[in-house]
């Protein structure tokens, strides 16, 4: 049974009933099988209804769902011969950002992204996807390497934000993020970024200044978390729902604003109910983007990327 979010309570109850009935199914009672099928149809309908109109706050919760596929799930399914490359050559290897060489549908690529971890031990190991300066410096190093060998860069973004800690500040968190954005904007190879879960502020844009920015249907991307925004502007984190509305952090709004280029649909009930399908869909979208960008030479890839970001902010929501 998946972890249910608060707003999924009715679903949880139905699925609980189905689970109970399945235990009795072995008795061969035909009525039980029928009841299971009936309840399953009800679940599907409810899922469809619920997920068709998720509020921005509900999307935030879905984007953070612990069972949502993370970076290593994507590389596991999309990248052959994945060869992680460690370290910033100056201080440490940051496990919140993973990157390396691999083969995506036949072509060599550099894949970089945040890993949140999928169980408690992994979450601690990857620091919940919150990178320190070493992480952003590793990303810079790998993007520069990709540039040198003319390999496209795929960036998978999934972070609550950069790590707010004394050590991170002492080693220049601000400079590391700034240089990482600068590197994204400088390279002469295709950079396709995808917001796969949480696109949290500076820690996200550090990898996301790409030629194409894709975004999963229920992912969120924002300058600040709804809780953080609420505690500053409403002076209470309780108002996170209102803040999530106001921030316009959903894929739909960001597409209208021209901040992202494409929404990648998630299976019924969100990516955590269909990891394989989600990953396949993102892979297809990345392949399309790479195909389009393949026509451009290095100089125009760089120029187009810069023009795209300079243009941002010219479109508004009515």
């Amino acid at each position, binding site marked *: 049974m998946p972890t249910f979010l608060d707003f999924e309570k009715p679903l949880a109850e139905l699925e609980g009933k189905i689970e109970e009935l399945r235990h009795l199914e072995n008795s061969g009672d035909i009525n039980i099988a029928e009841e299971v099928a009936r309840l399953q149809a009800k679940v599907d309908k409810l899922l469809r209804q619920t997920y068709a109109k998720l509020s921005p706050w509900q999307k935030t919760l879905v984007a953070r769902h612990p069972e949502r596929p993370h970076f290593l799930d994507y590389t596991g399914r999309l990248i052959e011969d994945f060869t992680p490359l460690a370290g910033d050559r100056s201080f440490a290897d940051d496990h919140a950002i993973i990157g390396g060489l691999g083969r995506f549908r036949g072509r060599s690529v550099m894949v970089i992204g945040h890993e949140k971890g999928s169980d408690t031990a992994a979450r601690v190991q990857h620091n919940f996807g919150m990178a320190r300066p070493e992480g952003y410096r590793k990303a810079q190093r790998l993007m520069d390497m990709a540039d040198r060998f003319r390999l496209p860069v795929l960036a998978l973004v999934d972070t609550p934000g950069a790590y707010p800690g004394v050590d*991170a500040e002492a080693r220049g968190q601000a400079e590391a993020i700034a240089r990482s954005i600068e590197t994204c*904007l400088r390279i002469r190879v295709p950079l396709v970024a995808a917001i796969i879960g949480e696109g949290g502020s500076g820690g996200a844009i550090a990898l996301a200044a790409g030629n194409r920015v894709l975004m999963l249907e229920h992912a969120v991307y924002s300058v600040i978390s709804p809780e953080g925004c609420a505690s500053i502007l409403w002076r209470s984190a309780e108002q996170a729902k209102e803040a999530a509305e106001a921030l316009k952090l959903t894929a739909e709004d960001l597409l209208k604003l021209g901040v992202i280029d494409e929404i990648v649909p998630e299976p019924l009930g969100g990516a955590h109910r269909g990891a394989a399908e989600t990953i396949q869909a993102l892979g297809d979208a990345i392949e399309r983007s790479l195909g389009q960008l393949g026509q451009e030479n290095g100089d125009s890839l760089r120029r187009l990327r810069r023009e795209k970001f300079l243009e941002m902010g010219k479109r508004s929501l009515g």
Partner: protein
Amino acid sequence: MSWLTNFVRPKLQALVRKNNVPDNLWEKCPGCGQMIFHRELEANLRVCTQCGHHLRLTWQKRLGLLFDDGAFGRIELARTDPDPLKFRDRKRYGERLKESQAKTGEQDAIVVAHGTMGGLKTVIAAFNFDFMGGSMGAAVGDGLIAAARLAVAEKAPLIVIPASGGARMQEGIISLMQMPRSIIAVDEVKEAGLPYIVLLSDPTTGGVSASFAMLGDIAVAEPGAVIGFAGARVIEETIREKLPEGFQRSEYLLEHGMVDLVVPRAELRETLIRILRLLRQPRLDATGLVPYQAV
């Protein structure tokens, strides 16, 4: 964009104006808590006469201190949709903007000025902290782009003086997008072979620190300025770490290799001019300084 458009030699009166504060006021130093006579504080460039604390400067004072004879021109900034998200918290963002505009007499939190420093043409983009905490939204990003393009067109160095709490939250994702936009702006100056100097003033934090502000060819900081990415309170509250003495202050950044120089306000102008001359006048002839020539 002609160099001399709307170039006005400021009246001496405007330079010594004291922000409508009567002369007989005393001001409390945030550093040592001493009450200091207002006129004395102004005469000392708003540096505490007791403890040396550098109080914040308005952009007018700041530019007056840096340019030759305190004289500079400003460029008009094009106006974009100030509220792309139609943002509303307890109040409409549109209202907050209007209030700040009424309070400061400015359109937004950045001023782009040009003039000379030590005889060298210089463009300065200065943040206006009094305008919504100097927060960076699209108008600030546009201002930085305009400043960079003016510097490139005039073959002049660019000095940016951030004084900002970070992103303008009310512009949501559009404020985040000012990080790449401002970086592209200063890169244009660097690519033109022109110096890009950052004068980090109090405060320089959040998305402003994590973009153009940390990418100067040379980073000069004012003493005691708060400079960092994450807010000290956020670090204390979420990570429950005790903050070391002087954390995120200019001197702490100097020690950790993040800035080049920490320079007291009284020496700022001469230091910047010295740097600009070293970078822009690489050879001296027998008579002294070679007259400035554009590259």
